[in-house]
């Protein structure tokens, strides 16, 4: 009998665990199978629509999207066609609305709607007019499409009257200039709009009729009046990935290469004749859930010193110049004491991999400080918190303290960026301290909807501080990274994975610790240049080229560029006689000009004048802007009047590495009390039964 007791105990344990297992079973079943859930959901409700459903209120399947990207890079300029195929799997007529990203400097100048063999070319119109054209065609049952710009890097495609099982292909074409920095060329293609944090109070729909309404998950607020247009519904990660994407790049770098790589995706590389390459994604089932990046490195002796291109357009001459100033890596590092303010975003969207990357990068940056520097560390989510009230000397023990503080940071809550940025920009009142070189290193995914307010703050409060943005994660907001750095007179960098941290941060340290080329001016010797962009010319950090666009009547033979390098004057003369003629230079200038006008707008309340200048320019160059859209309409109505049209906001993936719960979490509305009570009681019963048995037999 003695020998049977352990067996009895084991048996009871098994019974107990299976009982607990049984109790958990309903929730487990609900999680793993879809059908029973819908049944259980169906029983209780008495109908009616509840919360704003991100998934669309109607049970009719939404259109499916399939994207193919074809890129041709020749030298410094890339032309890309994004082909979006909308297919309608339902039995009803559909309108699909898809919010998607493009590179933040993309000059979108073509739209084509393809229905079978038929191709309809899109027209550029003022945004309100284009909307009307589209709405009219939509109501008449004609196939129509509309491409609008919400942010320089967020666009919306609307496609009306997609027939059941008859796909419509929308082709969007844009041009951009590739980035050249520290000896490498690179190009980023964003694939998904990461969920933006929307600050402010929701606006009343009645009071708010002037603001654009979208199909997004966020209501428009006083701080982000178009929030509903930049927050596309998100597919829950447990439902699998959607929106397959294919990528084909023809790369003609115009020089011999040492290396081509993509830190974000595995690629297939085919070398073609005459020094050109074909790049495609290795994985045939790739989905739009992270940025794609391609990096190509020329052989060191091949690195160009200057590239000059020109184009004649409607009686004007446009010129593009990229010039390498003498590399300053051989020059001395900065010797003036610095005040470095580190800012780290610890909002919910930074959860998981992103925070790990940001911590690694920041930790590395902390270790670069010297005792003559001062520093502070600020974290922000819904609230802002700083390690010290004001910057402190970077002594060994303080660095150690900062490293410990950094280690303990967790990602949760909202992205209230304004207070954090304001605190970082606050200068020390001590006049001696204010002589220091002030640098802010801002680590964030930039996933906010109130970019303009942030830019305005930087512009207003910058003074002698310099702002360097570090874009973290798989789908950072590139527009924020570039523009915040531009207004902050610093530079931007991206850290997309933990393996990249070391290299990317080292490149940033070169920029932070070497003197920049400042006060740059350009003069022509023999004729006047009507306009030089960007205006003012930015400071250049270690490894950055000077990239400018000119508009002029007659082409000067040469120009003189002057500046200051570490306080000493610097000058160079560039001949323009050899400028090669090529297409796209006028469009590049126009896109730069629109960006400049938009920048001026961040500080102005009254934007009517700027708006009109942008519209004129965009219409002339066939460009999509905040105020102009491309619209394509098929003349023949296809949808019978009697049949309704269902509008669907297309879902997007959650960016790779993000956690749904950290961003869209519903409150946890059950306590473990019952589980505690049940398991506790079982344990007591078990002890009681067991001791009884023991007494009986013992």
């Amino acid at each position, binding site marked *: 009998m*003695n020998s049977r*007791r352990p067996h009895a105990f084991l048996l009871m344990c098994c019974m107990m665990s299976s009982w607990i297992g049984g*109790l*958990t079973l*309903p*929730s487990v079943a*609900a*999680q793993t199978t879809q059908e029973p*859930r819908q049944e259980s*959901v169906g029983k*209780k*409700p*008495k*109908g*009616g629509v*509840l*919360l*704003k*459903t*991100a*998934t669309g209120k109607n049970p009719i399947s939404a259109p499916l999207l399939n994207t193919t990207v074809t890129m041709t890079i020749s030298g410094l300029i890339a032309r890309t066609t994004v082909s979006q195929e909308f297919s309608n799997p339902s039995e009803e007529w559909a309108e699909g609305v898809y919010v998607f990203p493009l590179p933040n400097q993309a000059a979108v100048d073509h739209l084509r709607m393809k229905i079978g063999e038929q191709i309809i070319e899109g027209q550029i119109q003022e945004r309100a007019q284009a909307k009307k054209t589209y709405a009219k065609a939509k109501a008449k049952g004609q196939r129509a499409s509309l491409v609008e710009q919400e942010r320089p890097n967020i666009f919306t495609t609307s496609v009306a009257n997609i027939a059941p099982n008859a796909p419509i292909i929308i082709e969007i074409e844009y041009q951009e200039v590739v980035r050249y920095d520290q000896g490498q060329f690179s190009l980023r293609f964003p694939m998904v709009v990461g969920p933006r944090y929307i600050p*402010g*109070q*929701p606006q*009343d*729909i*009645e*009071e708010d009729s002037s603001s654009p309404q979208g199909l997004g*998950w966020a*209501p428009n607020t006083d701080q982000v009046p178009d929030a509903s247009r930049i927050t596309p*519904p*998100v597919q*829950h990660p*447990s*439902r699998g990935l959607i929106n397959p994407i294919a990528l084909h790049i023809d790369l003609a770098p115009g020089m011999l290469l040492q290396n081509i790589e993509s830190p974000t995706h595995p690629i297939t590389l085919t070398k073609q004749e005459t020094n050109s390459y074909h790049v495609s994604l290795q994985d045939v089932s790739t989905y739009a859930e992270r940025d794609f990046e391609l990096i190509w490195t020329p052989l060191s002796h091949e690195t160009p010193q200057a590239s000059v291109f020109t184009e004649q357009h409607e009686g004007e001459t446009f010129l593009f110049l990229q010039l390498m100033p003498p590399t300053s890596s051989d020059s001395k590092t900065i010797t003036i004491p610095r005040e470095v303010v580190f800012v780290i975003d610890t909002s919910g969207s930074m959860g998981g991999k992103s925070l790990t990357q940001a911590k690694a990068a920041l930790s590395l940056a902390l270790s670069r400080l010297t005792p003559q520097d001062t520093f502070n560390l600020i974290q922000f989510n819904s609230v802002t918190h700083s390690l010290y009230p004001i910057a402190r000397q970077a002594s060994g023990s303080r660095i150690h303290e900062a490293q410990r503080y950094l280690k303990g940071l967790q990602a949760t809550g909202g992205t209230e960026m304004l207070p954090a940025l304001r605190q970082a920009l606050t200068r020390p009142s001590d006049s001696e301290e204010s002589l220091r070189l002030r640098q802010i290193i801002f680590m964030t995914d930039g996933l906010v909807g109130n970019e303009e307010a942030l830019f305005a703050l930087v512009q207003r409060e910058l003074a002698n501080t310099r702002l360097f943005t570090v874009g973290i994660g798989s789908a950072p907001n590139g527009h924020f990274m570039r523009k915040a750095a531009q207004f902050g007179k610093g530079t931007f960098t991206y850290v997309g994975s933990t393996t990249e941290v070391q290299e990317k941060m080292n490149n940033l340290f070169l920029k932070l610790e070497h003197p920049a080329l400042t006060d740059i001016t350009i003069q022509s010797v023999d004729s006047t240049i009507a306009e030089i962009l960007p205006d003012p010319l930015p400071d250049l950090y270690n490894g950055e080229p000077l990239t400018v666009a000119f508009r002029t009547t007659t082409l000067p033979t040469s120009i003189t560029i002057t500046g200051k390098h570490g306080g000493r004057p610097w000058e160079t003369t560039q001949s323009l006689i050899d400028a090669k003629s090529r297409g796209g230079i006028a469009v590049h200038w126009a896109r730069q000009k629109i960006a400049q006008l938009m920048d001026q707008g961040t500080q102005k309340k009254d934007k009517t004048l700027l708006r009109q200048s942008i519209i004129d320019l965009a219409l002339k160059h066939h460009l999509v802007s905040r105020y102009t859209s491309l619209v394509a309409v098929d003349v023949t109505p296809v949808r019978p009047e009697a049949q309704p049209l269902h509008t669907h906001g297309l879902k997007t993936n959650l960016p790779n590495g993000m956690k749904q719960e950290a961003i*869209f979490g*519903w*409150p*946890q*509305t*059950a*306590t*473990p*009390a*019952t*589980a*505690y*009570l*049940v*398991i*506790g*009681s*079982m*344990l*007591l019963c*078990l*002890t009681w039964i*067991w001791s009884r048995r*023991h007494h009986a037999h*013992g």
Partner: protein
Amino acid sequence: MPDMDLVTTPPRTRVRHHMVWIVASLLFGLGSWLIGQGAWIHLKAVTAQWLLHQAWQETLTSQQPVKPWAWADTWPVGKLTIPRLGTNQIILADASGQSLAFGPGKVGKGKFSGKDSESLILSGHRDTHFSFVQDLQVGDVLTLQTLQGNWLNFSVENTAVVDSQEVTLTSNHEGGMLQLITCYPFDAVLPGGPLRYVVTAKLAARKLSLKPRLLPTPLEAQEEGA
């Protein structure tokens, strides 16, 4: 061999006897601790509401956020009563895990001062404060006292179960709505499932209760008492 067995059995039994008692007391201890934890959650939920009612009275008088206890991270922003069920609960400013232990919380940025255009989402634990939600029926009247001391009546329009993985929780675009959210199913033992039970109520007869006659506000009741 049986002899050998007889000789060696007594010490082995003693050891086993000890082992059994150690394991039994461990199990007993663990069981009691778990029951204590479970009871503590309920005790906290009830006691906190008592303190919160006091803080709410002060809030109405001072028109300032009042912390119910010195180390609290949250404060009362409203009072919810369901006359038919005799429910009377103080609503907290947020719906974080810490706050929901003490009372139902306001979700997101919704506010309610009494305008038709505003909406409010409240959430609470299905097994403590919001266990009454399962008894709500269409037509039931929910009464909400705002920070301004106004009483607003809502009537339940519908109830439904939603999947939190399918539906995004966001402030409602439609005004004049009060929604109560809690976990579902109500009798599940383990927390953390994806389903939520949502009760939607619509603002009714707003003007009627602006100057309370039949239902004295706690403020008036207090004055009368004093």
